[in-house]
């Protein structure tokens, strides 16, 4: 076990309540570097809410979120992003009116301030990065296509590509293979494996085959709390988990 300071992300007794309803309650979560950690659980377990809390979209009512030993709870969303956390949403959230190239370009971390935006130039470095990322997400041939007409799977990949442009140390993917064909799923699993070479990834997913393939560690959530945590085999053998998934 490593010292707390070594964790990339450490979440302690995190909680949020919406008008008295505790969507997430006493949530503890520690993430090492270069790991893929999958959160599973039935609908309404609070998985997406946990991601919302970490990235600042929803404000927590209690607990602490430390990223690289810095408290990030309460920071504005863009500051959390700039600290190095990227977030992919459940529905592909891309700029439909911009081309794939522009989608990736806008995600480049240089020049995010007002004057940075005005002074931003398409340098060799930027172009090289865009090309490299587009290659990773298999969209190289489609750089000048308007993003709105991409297939669903390609939109998912484009959003992952946009996150990769940001070069975050922590990537949070909410259902990255929803609506994908089997072949697309395999490709995505490969991509996530590749990504996790240099950064940590938190994934929310329902597809157990997919989870088995990518997960270093799995957390099972139920009713806003952690039910079990460990390797895939470990949680699958846990009677409480079986109860929740099959019991009713």
């Amino acid at each position: 076990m490593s010292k707390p300071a070594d964790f990339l992300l450490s979440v302690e007794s995190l909680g949020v309540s919406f008008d008295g309803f505790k969507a997430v309650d006493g949530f503890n979560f520690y993430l090492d570097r270069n790991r893929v950690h999958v959160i599973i659980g039935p609908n309404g377990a609070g998985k997406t809410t946990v991601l919302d809390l970490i990235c600042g979209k929803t404000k927590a009512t209690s607990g602490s979120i430390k990223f690289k030993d810095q408290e990030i709870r309460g920071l504005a969303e863009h500051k959390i992003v700039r600290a190095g956390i990227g977030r992919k949403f459940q529905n592909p959230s891309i700029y439909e009116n911009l081309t794939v190239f522009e989608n990736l370009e806008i995600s480049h971390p240089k020049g995010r301030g007002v004057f940075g935006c005005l002074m931003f130039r398409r340098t060799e470095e930027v172009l090289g990065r865009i090309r490299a990322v587009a290659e990773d997400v298999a969209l190289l041939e489609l750089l000048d296509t308007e993003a709105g007409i991409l297939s669903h799977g390609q939109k998912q990949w484009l959003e992952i590509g946009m996150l990769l442009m940001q070069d975050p140390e922590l990537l949070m993917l909410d259902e990255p293979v929803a609506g994908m064909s089997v072949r697309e799923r395999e490709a995505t699993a490969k991509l996530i494996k590749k990504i996790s070479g240099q950064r940590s990834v938190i994934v929310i997913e329902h597809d157990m085959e997919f989870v088995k393939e990518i997960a270093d560690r799995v957390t099972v959530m139920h009713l806003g709390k952690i039910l079990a945590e460990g390797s895939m085999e470990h949680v699958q053998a846990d009677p409480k988990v079986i109860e929740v998934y099959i019991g009713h």
Partner: protein
Amino acid sequence: MLFKTLFKSRAEFLSYAALTLLLVVVLPVLLPVFRLNLFGKYLTYGFVGVGLVLLWGRCGILSLGQGVFFGIGGYCMAMFLKLEASDPITTKIQSTPGIPDFMDWNQLTHLPFFWEPFKHFPVALLAVVLVPTALAFCLGWAMFQRRVGGVYFAIITQAIALIISLGIDGNQGYTGGRNGITDLRTLLGWDIRSTSAQYILYFACVFFLLLCGLAAKYIINTRMGRVLVAIRDREDRVRFSGYDVALCRTFVFALAALISGVGGAFFVLQVGFMSPSLIGIVPSIEMVIFTAVGGRLSVVGAILGSLIVNLGKTTFSEAIPELWLFLMGGTFIAVVMFFPNGVAGLMEPGGWLSTKLEPFKAMLFGRSGPGSGAGNEVVEVVKNTSVSIAQTTEVTK
């Protein structure tokens, strides 16, 4: 480099060049000075339109209070001109000579403190630019930080327009009240009502308008422009791409105010007065209509819109005054229903006019088909350079 940033395609350059030709050559040659001066007045609303293209067209923020910034810019200029017109010799019949006439009527015996700085021309010029910008920055920051947007933002800006116009209206001694600040004659001793002055002011107004237009086009074509569109279409994603959405919105709101303020100053110079009736709710909404009619996505369109609608206003309100308001309302409805991108949208490739002109083009140039946009060229360049980068890395390996 700069050229490519300003004009993404040849068509864009040609339309801006055509507008320049119209304003700089055609109108001054064709029109007598009285009419030209009227067109100069219309063009001052074009400034507001250019600001609205950035604010409303690109960033999706509908402000129904742009008249406020136009008016403040105008008042800053008018205060300087009024003080110049109120020297002790000209105003020696007043009980307190040396102060503006309306102050004297309201029993003021000395110049209010906030009028003092406007004795100096450079200060007044600076105020024309800075006061609207600073006000918009503060208002914008307060609202956008709290994520006030959409209809609520429009309503608040409209309320601000009402408050400011009533505030000016109700403080006659300090602001000239409902009459406004009138009887402005000279600028640093130069008679602004002479024919030559009207020509010079018209050209100065056109120059600054085209300059503001270029600045707006520059912003639209930089990363800032794409971020603004992205905020309009998908605010959350922009936030999670690491941008401060509130700050970007505040920036564009303040910039639109700055441009409107310059327009207000030129209005005062060409028309010779400023009053609260020019900055309240109705004129503020009219400014939005000019922009919608011309095309809220296009700088050239917004400038044309201010010309067309105001020309219509003058013509029809001279001929059939009682019908004018209905006509303007009808135009606005027609724009919203039938051509949402305004006149500029009709002229764009694929728009109504271009499809009508297609056969003629084919006749003239042998074959049809618009030139490929520079956007595609850029992507081409990217592909080529990145291919060559890839090749070099291959070689070095």
